[in-house]
């Protein structure tokens, strides 16, 4: 049996008196797309932020290829994080940088690429995401959809091994949303990265996923494939994807 790329082992996280994660168990294999779904405020972003190291678990273990993330040497941790990108829910674009500079920033600051190479790579990503011609525009001058795609381009520009997407299509129209889904799938096939996507685009997002995990009340209550969740055999998962709150609440008890 191959070792999972990322493994959550009974991970718990508390903020003050509020326990957000109450023992997460989840494995993510290399080169796969895992979609995490769940009610708003259920801790999906907190889960992602554990992987990127922005939040540390109070209890349990987060293993990266079998080694606990908080016990990796500085060099190992740096190497792991260097090969990772994070696309924030609210984009987190830098207001004082243009769209081009935003996308080019990780290349300029963390690689030794020449300006010509950077320009070529950034424009390639911009072309693929249909955001050409906005090089000199600041985030405040762009529409919500444009900003989302600039953030996506920034996440993809370093060719990472792992990309964490926090609601990558929120605020996009159905056409752009499908474009982004298509791009994630296409890029993933091309570069073979591992992706963890937090999304509410149900059921469209399931088309991308090799694994779907439902986070509820601080625990992963369902793990399975698109077929398994759509078969509606798991009561909580079925109630959630159909948006039936009464059924959903009853299934929790």
């Amino acid at each position: 049996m191959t070792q999972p790329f990322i493994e959550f082992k009974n991970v718990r996280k508390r903020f003050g008196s509020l326990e957000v994660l109450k023992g997460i168990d989840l494995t993510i294999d290399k080169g796969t797309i895992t979609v995490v779904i769940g009610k708003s405020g259920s801790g999906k972003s907190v889960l992602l932020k554990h992987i990127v190291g922005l939040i540390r678990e109070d209890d349990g273990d987060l293993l990266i290829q079998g080694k606990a993330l908080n016990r990796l040497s500085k060099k190992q941790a740096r190497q792991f994080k260097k090969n990772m990108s994070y696309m924030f829910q609210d984009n987190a674009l830098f207001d004082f940088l243009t769209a081009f500079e935003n996308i080019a920033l990780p290349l300029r600051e963390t690689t030794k690429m020449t300006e010509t190479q950077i320009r070529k790579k950034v424009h390639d990503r911009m072309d693929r995401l249909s955001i050409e011609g906005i090089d000199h525009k600041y985030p405040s001058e762009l529409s919500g959809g444009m900003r989302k795609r600039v953030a996506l381009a920034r996440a993809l520009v370093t060719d990472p091994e792992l990309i964490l997407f926090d609601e990558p299509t929120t605020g996009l129209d159905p056409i752009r949303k499908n474009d982004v889904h298509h791009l994630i799938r296409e890029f993933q096939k091309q570069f073979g990265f591992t992706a963890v996507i937090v999304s509410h685009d149900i059921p469209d997002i399931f088309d991308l996923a090799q694994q779907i995990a439902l986070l509820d009340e601080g625990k992963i209550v369902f793990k399975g494939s698109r077929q398994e969740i759509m078969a509606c055999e798991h009561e909580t998962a079925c109630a959630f994807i159909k948006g039936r709150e009464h059924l959903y609440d009853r299934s929790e008890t």
Partner: protein
Amino acid sequence: MMITRLIEAIGNPFSTHIESTGRLIRFFFAGIRQIPVLPLQFGKTMDQIWFIGAKSLFVILLTGLFTGMVLGLQGYYTLVTFGSEAALGGAVALSLIRELGPVLTAIMITARAGSAMAAEIGVMRMSEQIDALITMQIDPIRFLFTPRILAALISFPLLTSFFDVVGIFGGFLSGSMLMGINETVYMDKVIQSVKAMDIWGGFIKSIVFALVVTTICCYRGFYAHMNHQGQSGAKGVSLATTSAVVQSCICILIFDYVITSFLV
């Protein structure tokens, strides 16, 4: 029970302040340590010199001019009662170079650029831009704080010297042009009374104020989400900006006294 509560009531804010001071000192040294690290952040530092230095120039010149004019006027009326109005040039120059130049320049830069630094970095914290830097493996302290502190170390002494020169000219306008003190006497007294040590003293003060103001303002913005009232969002940024300006001004005056006591 009462004693426990009392100890808690005294101890909690005390330990919070100790913790915050420790964090501030670590923040300062983390930023300073990055100054010589290659590649040097030349472009970002130039941008900050433009923002802190060039854009503050007009305010500094205006403040310096009127401070000098007031000093000239007040100084004249005080000195004339002793029949020593000829010493006005020296009095104006020494007051400006030793005290008012560095202090007022630092306070004006705090109001104009320091508040903006705290607000800008605070908004970056609240909108997860600082987290984005961390996820990109970019050191946020190096990226945000180091160019600002370097720019402040260059801008503060320069602006202080502009303030001093314009202030002396302001004293000349009110003392000589308005009140009729001989122009040559005024300028002679300026040259005679100012010693190299006075200029060095003002220079040292402006360097210290640059470090103090930039560190406090950037630190407050950087940790805008950790304010004692637990406020986030716009309120958190507003609190960070207010406390950055207030603490900077207080620290300028405290450090001014401490440095002066060593220099005199």
